[in-house]
């Protein structure tokens, strides 16, 4: 049995409370590390924090003492920009010490500006140039099938990332090859670098697009832990086709002034970290 994950329902109150608390700590650490680094993407890290907590601390089968464990579940952060929240999760799970987080983006750090599988224990794939993760996940999922392995592959995509044509190449081939050990999760926070997705490049109707490509679609509130956990379980039960979980989220979730800024259509917190005083205010709010 792995130290982490591989777990399914029941999802009781205590579990939900525990995972919510972990998500909160991932949010704070994401904000602290990016402020210390004077750069990094916070909006998309905060929107994905609940999904990441559900995966790394309950659902995903993995072992921080043995990052290369053959039967581990594979998690690919296709929206590589949100790596602060993954780094926070990896530190909390024990892949490396929390102190490492404060060296994010600094010369010689194991934590690069975007995920690097050769430098960071627990990082499965080098990403950061959008659109490639789903294809990579398919290769891994098909390799598992060839090798008779039971591990599953999870790919977290951004909604802005869905503009990339390669995502749809991969969407087409995943259903062609009936890859059912692959779960895609779209962090649908409705914003991309330069504005709202509705304004920059509309994705509507996003669920229908995935259905048309042959995927089983589950739509959830990406901040409701029970919905996240239930959807991950449901995806495992679907056979003969891939599943996408479309998680409706808020960019900047958990910090009111960041959420408000995005809700008003601004993009200032997409790729710019908080100032020291903003950070103090945000941490206070998160831990109220």
């Amino acid at each position, binding site marked *: 049995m792995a130290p982490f994950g591989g777990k399914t329902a029941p999802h009781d109150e205590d579990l939900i409370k525990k995972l919510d608390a972990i998500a909160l700590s991932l949010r704070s650490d994401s904000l602290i590390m990016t402020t210390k680094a004077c750069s990094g993407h916070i909006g998309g890290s905060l929107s994905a924090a609940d999904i990441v907590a559900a995966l790394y601390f309950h659902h995903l089968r993995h072992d921080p003492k043995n990052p290369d464990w053959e039967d581990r579940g594979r998690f690919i952060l296709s929206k590589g920009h949100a790596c602060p929240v993954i780094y926070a999760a990896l530190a909390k799970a024990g892949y490396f010490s929390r102190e490492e987080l404060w060296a994010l983006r600094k010369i010689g750090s194991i934590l690069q500006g975007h995920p690097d599988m*050769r430098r960071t224990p627990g990082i499965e*794939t080098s*990403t950061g140039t959008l659109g490639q993760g789903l294809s990579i996940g*398919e290769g*891994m999922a098909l390799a598992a099938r060839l090798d008779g392995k039971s591990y599953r592959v999870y790919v977290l995509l951004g909604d802005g990332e869905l503009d990339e044509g390669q995502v749809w*190449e991969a969407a087409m081939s995943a259903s*062609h090859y009936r890859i059912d050990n692959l779960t895609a999760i779209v962090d649908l926070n409705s914003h991309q670098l330069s504005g709202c997705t509705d304004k920059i490049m509309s994705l509507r109707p996003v669920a229908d697009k995935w259905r048309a490509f042959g995927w089983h679609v589950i739509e959830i509130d990406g901040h409701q832990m029970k919905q996240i956990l239930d959807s991950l379980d449901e995806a495992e039960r679907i056979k003969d086709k891939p599943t996408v979980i479309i998680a409706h989220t808020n960019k900047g979730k958990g910090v009111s002034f960041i959420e408000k800024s995005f809700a008003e259509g601004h993009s200032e917190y997409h790729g710019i970290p908080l100032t020291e005083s903003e950070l103090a205010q945000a941490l206070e709010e998160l831990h109220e």
Partner: protein
Amino acid sequence: MSERLEATRNAYGEALVELGRTNKNVVVLDADLSPSTKTSKFAEEFPERFFDVGVAEANLISMAAGFASAGKTAFASTFSVFGTEKGLNQFKQSAAYPKLNVKLVVTHGGISVGEDGVSHFCIEDIAVMRSLPNVTVVVPADAVETRVATKAIAEYEGPVFMRLSRPKTPLIYEEGYRYAGTDLTFHLGKSVTLKEGEDVTIVATGLMVVEALVAASDLAKEGIDAGVINVHTIKPLDQEAILRAARKSGAIVTAEEHNILGGLGGAVAEVLVENTPVPMARVGIRNSFGESGPWKELFAKYGLTSSDILKKVKEVMKRRG
């Protein structure tokens, strides 16, 4: 040189089948071109290990990287122009940077594609690929060399770009990788000196090795002793052999079916200038995309024949004095 003709892509297709029989870890991906890249032979014998992704080169290369991440030796094939240019960022980010075991083996390199014309030519692939860290760049000279090269790149751990050609071309080597009666061993990163020369050395790659040999033989009739080096691995480049030839013969002519910029000529010039500057000239395609036509006529029109090499040899020898 043999009278027998065979396309390097054909040898690749057969070598892949051999590989598939001995190495169960090999998977092959293609982007709807398997009858042309000859991965169709592997697909026929090992359908469970063959994946056609359709006309989707970005997906092709990233999927190969996914297979490689899970421990497979992943061959991905398409035409050079598509593999190099539609999947470049994917190859760089998901294969080269993390040093994954992805073998991007492209066919239809250069302009010997012929009648299909410019949209299907690739005369910048060597320049682009050799500028990527971690990537080994291989261009075999004939079908025999392609067989041993395919085996060698499968055994090598890491990302490789191998460029093959469409047309049937003469065999330089005898079956089993022999030359002039001698058994050879294929080493990635080592060139093959086919002929030593006192007066000048022709450094060639791919289909231009045949032209180099013809040029050397024509030059011999005029009393000029030209050496010929086949550079089957452009990166890492066999600097030692090139510098030895430069010191011995005092003049170098490079020959490649590629843009004159950044390919073999560029690589050789970099080495010479920093170590042993000697008069040098490059044979290649000059500032042109080319056009449709039978490939041999294209070689003549765009300066890729033995007589083009011969002219450059005389030019460098004059410069050397």
